[in-house]
């Protein structure tokens, strides 16, 4: 494309509005305005220059901040709608199909909500698409501006074209002034300006790096988004759950049986008087307040073992897993997520003669691992015909409501020397059912209780990427927000001078700073041409 040569001699890329070097106005439209649009230094942006091919069109679409803002606002609204009703992913196991659930619980609104897919807003393809478009828009938008802006700021000269100066928002001029550049330089330096003086022209500049803030923060955002996408790459993310009861040693799921864990004890504590008088009111008000959930564990690594062989365990360490204190090993983290207290682990029964009360020995049934047969010697024995962990009568037939041992019941066959074919009995908690009149019974002795700890096992290799993105984002954000890019130009000409100032934000503070610097000098204080304009309007 044809380059544009300015009268100062600098060759600018095609599409340049203001000469990169001297600021002369190369664009007819810009020349007619009272003030210049300084946002990208009048540099040649691809989106403003080309509009031919389909790529140009896509590029131009996404490089528009207007489009970016619209995308952000649409995402914002979708996000808000998604918070009106609970998302299906938070509801757990539903008793009925989801569409029915929403309609039953929230009426016509729930029906519509489901119909439009808001029941799964944040996991839906269109939500991901919105986020992805924001990402694309961010990248294109930044490239479109950052590179030309960088060139323009790098090429700028101290001496500026008068057309450039008098179209700045802060501007003034004076005839017949003699400028003492040495003192002025000192004063500017005190305010941390970099001062360049060239043949009666002055450029004072500070905070240019803040101009890169938005681009840095956009890069951070992109890295963050990429990190989030990595979750879908196999191997980056493992999410498992482990129920482990006290005394048990299990392989940690998701680790390929590389690591084993023993649960020694699960601890559940609540606040009481010993925690101090200050909490008394709150505890009285709320009843019970949990203080600690903790699992005392030992972690082992396992040698590779053949299937069916007991693995060889090597202790790595003891640890107390608490909420906010996960156990970490090799990228994996084990979190204290849940618990079940006082579940029946085993039940002990005595085979008893109903009449005499004589006992022939106890059997202990481990509910996780019930045996078929229990031999008591001397010809006495018990067969376990059936076991219902969570017993219920359904349509007159015994069945189990779940696999959790909440209400265990057993069908026994009691074999004794005098009844070698055995007597049947059915024993649930607090209840014995006999089909025929029996001589013997299974008398409940004790039950042993055990606590289960629920641990989330998580491997998340996306975290470092996400963290780096977050840090870069914050740095860029601070860079662009806490500092401003301020420039002051002075040009002497024919015994008089022009002075102009530009900042990318916070004009009030900038104006005040110039005024302070120029006090006690003969240089005219620039006038805010925009405020004047505003005042004319008012």
């Amino acid at each position, binding site marked *: 494309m044809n380059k544009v040569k300015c009268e100062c001699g600098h060759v600018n890329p095609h599409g340049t509005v203001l000469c990169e070097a001297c600021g002369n106005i190369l664009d007819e439209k810009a020349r007619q305005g009272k003030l210049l649009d300084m946002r990208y230094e009048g540099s040649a942006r691809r989106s403003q220059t080309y509009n031919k091919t389909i790529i140009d069109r896509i590029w131009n679409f996404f490089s528009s901040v207007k489009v970016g803002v619209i995308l952000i606002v649409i995402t914002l609204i979708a996000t808000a709608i998604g*918070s009106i009703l609970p998302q299906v992913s938070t509801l757990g196991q539903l008793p009925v199909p989801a569409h029915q659930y929403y309609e039953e619980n929230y009426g016509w609104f729930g029906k519509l909500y489901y119909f439009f897919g808001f029941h799964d807003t944040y996991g839906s393809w269109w939500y991901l698409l919105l986020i992805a478009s924001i990402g694309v828009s961010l990248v294109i938008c930044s490239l479109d501006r950052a590179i030309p802006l960088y060139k323009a700021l790098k090429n700028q000269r101290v001496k500026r074209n008068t057309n450039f100066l008098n179209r700045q928002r802060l501007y003034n001029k004076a005839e017949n002034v003699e400028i003492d550049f040495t003192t002025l330089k000192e004063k500017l330096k005190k305010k941390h300006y970099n001062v360049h003086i060239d043949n009666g022209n002055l450029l004072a500049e500070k905070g240019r790096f803040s101009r890169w803030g938005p681009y840095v923060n956009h890069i951070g955002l992109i890295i963050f988004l990429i990190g989030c996408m990595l979750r879908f790459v196999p191997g980056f993310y493992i999410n498992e759950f482990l129920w482990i009861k006290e005394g048990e040693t299990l392989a940690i799921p998701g680790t390929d049986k590389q690591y084993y864990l023993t649960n020694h004890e699960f601890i559940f504590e609540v606040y009481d008087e010993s925690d101090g008088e200050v909490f008394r009111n709150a505890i009285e008000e709320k009843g019970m307040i949990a203080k600690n959930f903790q699992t005392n564990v030992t972690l082992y690594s396992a040698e590779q073992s053949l299937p069916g062989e007991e693995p060889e365990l090597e202790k790595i360490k003891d640890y107390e897993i608490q909420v906010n204190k996960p156990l970490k090993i090799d990228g994996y983290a084990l979190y204290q997520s849940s618990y079940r207290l006082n579940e029946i682990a085993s039940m002990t029964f005595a085979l008893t003669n109903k009449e005499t009360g004589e006992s022939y020995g106890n059997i202990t049934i481990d509910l996780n691992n019930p045996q078929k047969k229990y031999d008591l010697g001397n010809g006495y024995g018990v067969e376990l015909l059936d076991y219902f962990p969570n017993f219920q009568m359904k349509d007159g037939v015994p069945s189990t409501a779940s696999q959790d041992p909440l209400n265990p019941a057993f069908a026994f066959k009691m074999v004794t020397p005098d009844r070698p074919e055995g007597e049947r009995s059915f024993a649930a908690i607090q209840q014995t059912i006999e089909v025929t009149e029996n001589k013997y019974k299974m008398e409940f002795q004790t039950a042993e209780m055990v606590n289960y700890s629920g641990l989330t096992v998580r491997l998340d290799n996306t975290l470092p990427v996400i963290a780096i993105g977050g840090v870069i984002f914050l740095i860029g954000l601070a860079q662009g927000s806490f500092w401003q890019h301020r420039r002051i130009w002075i040009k002497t000409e024919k015994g008089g001078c022009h002075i102009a100032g530009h900042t990318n934000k916070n004009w009030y503070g900038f104006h005040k700073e110039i005024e302070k610097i120029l006090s006690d000098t003969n240089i005219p204080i620039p006038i805010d041409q925009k405020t004047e304009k505003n005042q004319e309007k008012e």
Partner: protein
Amino acid sequence: MAELSSNLLLIAFVIYLIATLFFGGAIRQKKGMDESHYKNKVTLSAKIGITLTIIGFIVHIGYFITRWIAAGHAPVSNMFEFITFFSLMVVGAFILIYFLYHTPVLGVFALPIVLILIGYASMFSRDITPLIPPLRSIWLPLHVMTTAAGQAILAISFIAGLIYLIKTVNQAEATRKRFSLELIMYFITVVIGFIVITSTFSFMNYEAQFEWVNKEGELSTIDYALPALVGPNEGTLLTASKMEPLVELPANFNTSRVNTVIWSFIAGTIIYILVRLITRKRISQMVQPLVSKINGNLLDEISYRSVLIGFPIFTLGGLVFAMIWAQIAWTRFWAWDPKEVWALITWFFYAAFLHLRLSRGWHGEKSAWLAVIGFGIIMFNLIFVNLVIAGLHSYV
């Protein structure tokens, strides 16, 4: 220690009240408020005002520290503590902006809002609550305090924006803008109504208990601190000689809270009507003369500057620290909990604000409206999402 702490909060409250009057005085003198904004002379009244504010701020910090010592953990773990801390941060942000821009008029609005916030906070249970396991983390104070600081600075942006609107919206014509601005004033009055009605009945020790059938179909009880206008699902009044509810609501409402909201609107509306009847002016019209002298560009810059400072701090506390903590305590950094969702919405909103301002040139009035709406979202998150949509964060 706990008692000393409460007393310090009360003292801070009184000092802020007096400081407001001095800032008001600073405006009345109409000195140094002229358009030449580079040579602002600070009046004596404003000097006293800011000095008192700083003393109040220190006493307020005293409240915070003593409560910290009493509780043994940072007092930012329930609604009362959070809002009192938030109000402390608003004062801090105001002081910061005051020294950047020397604007007593900001105090005339910021301090009353602080007073309302403290009053609002005091309506919640002031018990020191022990921390449940997930809250027992260094990230609790880091996350909550940083978020509160960011939101407080954004609150200053709201206040500057509000003053800008009061100054510029034409009161002579019945426009949508005039109506919207007055609506904001009305909402502020409703919050005052909430404080008035709640403290009145709390002073009278009003308490009524209902038995009701909850969503799971179980019998449960619910306490009312205000006479029941709306009652719970299949509720029966257990407390003798208290008001019976006028209507009954379905089971998926927390009727006690809905009831409080209705009462607040009733009380707020009555106060609002009384003010209108007595002054024969809209509230925004009434305060307009107070701010007519202040420079609009200055307000605009304060509002924008506060967003520029507040947005990164809010991002750090409300999103970044929140994610780090969630990763440690809840096993994942993001769970789409309603509170998180609304923090994200807030963040999107201010991002849109900054882009609109930077590239669409939305300065002045448009920018002021955005600052007001943004703070509305923050308040929505604090009040509505906390109380109505309960998630991981459900305080109280």
